[in-house]
């Protein structure tokens, strides 16, 4: 297990190098320079001034040298300053990271909580009305653009029914609430973003769970289990379910880039001050340092998710551990 873990950890280094290399060059080589923004905001700026600004940011050097410098700084956790307000990029991200992580972790929990039972039920009742309806519904929700669902949910719950607040993560009087009041206020604000951002995933994952379960139920070992007289409950939940759950672990790892990508849209819709909204603002301002730092952060989170998924897979399935 330890060798397996070490191998996986070492494999992260070239991956991260590749990701930073590609994004650095793609973003730097895209037509339109970051300094141009300052120029376009100020029509009186002279050519010398632009040159000076470029020099200040080190943007007059060859790209490879710039990449080397950037990489060196990254290793020391220095991502430079934000072009828009001059604050340290690391600070700006850190103060917003916890919100995004909380929402995404809650979404993942929701995902499991609903997708697994729905998928299992749909598989067990494959040829009944319930089975057909869930298949149809999951297919439908899988195709629905989630930001549209968010808009519809806002329209219904925040405007027509007035049950939930429409934006942000806290109310104006948040400071003065008791501890429980704060928790209640936060949950009222977070419930829509969390549910809506997990709906697409629930639909996808339960479809996956359903086919995995059907597949497992048709395996020879299920015949064996049944023919030796095990109860249906034991056959389904011990023998079939445990095997059908295995691939799910990997799927969750793969769904992390999607969740974090979705954060950009969700946080913009619900005005949530997380890293998704921060990234959107950074992209609009062409704030290159901030953009690069977030790309690295999200890549690291993705790889971390994959790593955890792989380790859990190796943990639950010993065959993986001993394979070379």
């Amino acid at each position, binding site marked *: 297990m330890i060798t397996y873990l070490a191998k996986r950890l070492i494999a992260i280094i*070239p*991956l991260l190098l*590749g*990701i930073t290399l*590609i*994004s650095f060059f*793609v*973003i730097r080589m*895209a*037509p*339109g320079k*970051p300094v141009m923004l300052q120029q376009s905001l100020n029509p009186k700026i002279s050519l010398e001034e632009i040159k000076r600004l470029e020099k200040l940011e080190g943007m007059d050097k060859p790209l490879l040298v710039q990449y080397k410098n950037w990489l060196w700084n990254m290793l020391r956790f220095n991502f430079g300053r934000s072009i828009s307000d001059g604050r340290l990029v690391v600070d700006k991200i850190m103060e917003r990271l916890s919100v995004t992580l909380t929402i995404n972790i809650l979404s993942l929990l929701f995902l499991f909580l609903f997708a697994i039972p729905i998928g299992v039920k749909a598989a067990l009742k494959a040829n009944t009305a319930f089975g057909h309806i869930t298949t149809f519904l999951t*297919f*439908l929700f*899988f*195709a*629905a*653009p989630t*930001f*549209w669902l968010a*808009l*519809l949910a*806002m*329209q219904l719950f*925040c*405007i*027509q029914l007035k049950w939930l607040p429409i934006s942000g993560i806290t109310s104006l009087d948040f400071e003065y609430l008791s501890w429980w009041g704060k928790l209640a206020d936060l949950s009222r604000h977070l419930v829509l973003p969390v549910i809506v951002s997990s709906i697409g995933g629930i639909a996808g994952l339960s479809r996956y769970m359903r086919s995995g379960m059907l597949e497992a139920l048709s395996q020879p070992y299920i015949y064996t289990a049944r023919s030796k007289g095990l109860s249906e409950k034991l056959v389904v939940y011990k023998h079939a379910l445990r095997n059908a759950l295995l691939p799910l672990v990997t799927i969750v790892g*793969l769904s992390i*880039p999607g969740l*974090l*990508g*979705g954060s*950009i*849209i969700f946080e*913009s*819709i619900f005005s949530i001050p997380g890293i998704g909204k921060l*990234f*959107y603002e950074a*992209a*609009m301002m*062409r704030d290159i340092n901030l*953009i690069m730092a*977030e*790309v690295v952060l*999200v*890549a690291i989170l*993705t*790889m971390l998710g*994959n790593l955890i998924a792989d380790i859990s897979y190796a943990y639950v399935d010993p065959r993986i551990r001993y394979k070379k």
Partner: protein
Amino acid sequence: MKNRALISGIVFIIALSCVAAFAPLLSPYDPAAINQDNLLSAPSSAHLLGTDSLGRDLLSRIIYGARISLSVGLVAVGIATLIGLSIGCLAGFYAGFLDMLLMRLVDVMLCFPTFYLILAVTAIAGPSVFNIMLIIGLTSWMGVARLVRAEILSLKEREFIQAATAIGATHFRIILRHLIPNALTPILVNATLGVSAAILIESGLSFLGLGVQPPTASWGNILIESKSTLGVAWWITVFPGLSILITILGFNIFAEGLKKEIG
């Protein structure tokens, strides 16, 4: 044995293509025509799906939006499939070092926060339909590459490939005439699902204001207005989203039908 999913998928895709192709004939109004006397009017017999905050006919804008969605979906997937096909063929056919290198590139791209990169590039390079097609295509070829590689690895030991090698066919010919045609159906399934994904990305980008720019209508950028008209004009939220939903559903059903064909 009838494959209902496949048939309804094909019918849908043909219908949508017709809507996109004959948009000028089908739409009742000019999609960009501003009408000051008819701002945010509810669906009626004059404007079947209502009008937006500039008085433009929503139905016409949605019909024209089909052009954007369909062309972004098809071109982006075309680019992705072409790249994926080439990389998958190279990796599968010439195993060894090249294979290792290309597959590591696939790993890197799969860990990539693609939506973040797409957003950054469209923001810096400037949002245009062409840029969006290109960048979606360049960031979504990994699935095809893996698929083609696996297909080729399993196909290339088969006798008909050995026979082709024996009669002196060039590598290029073997790949193009013998390997790719045999891997075509899974590639097509992948491409169909890719169209759905590309349409979703485009609508998301346009919704964020970094996609197709107004006054050109796209389903995503019509929805921008829905944030400010929530509770005032439900039609602006409902209909463009419904168009996206139905389109994605259509392509997914087609893909489902194709999968059934393979068995």
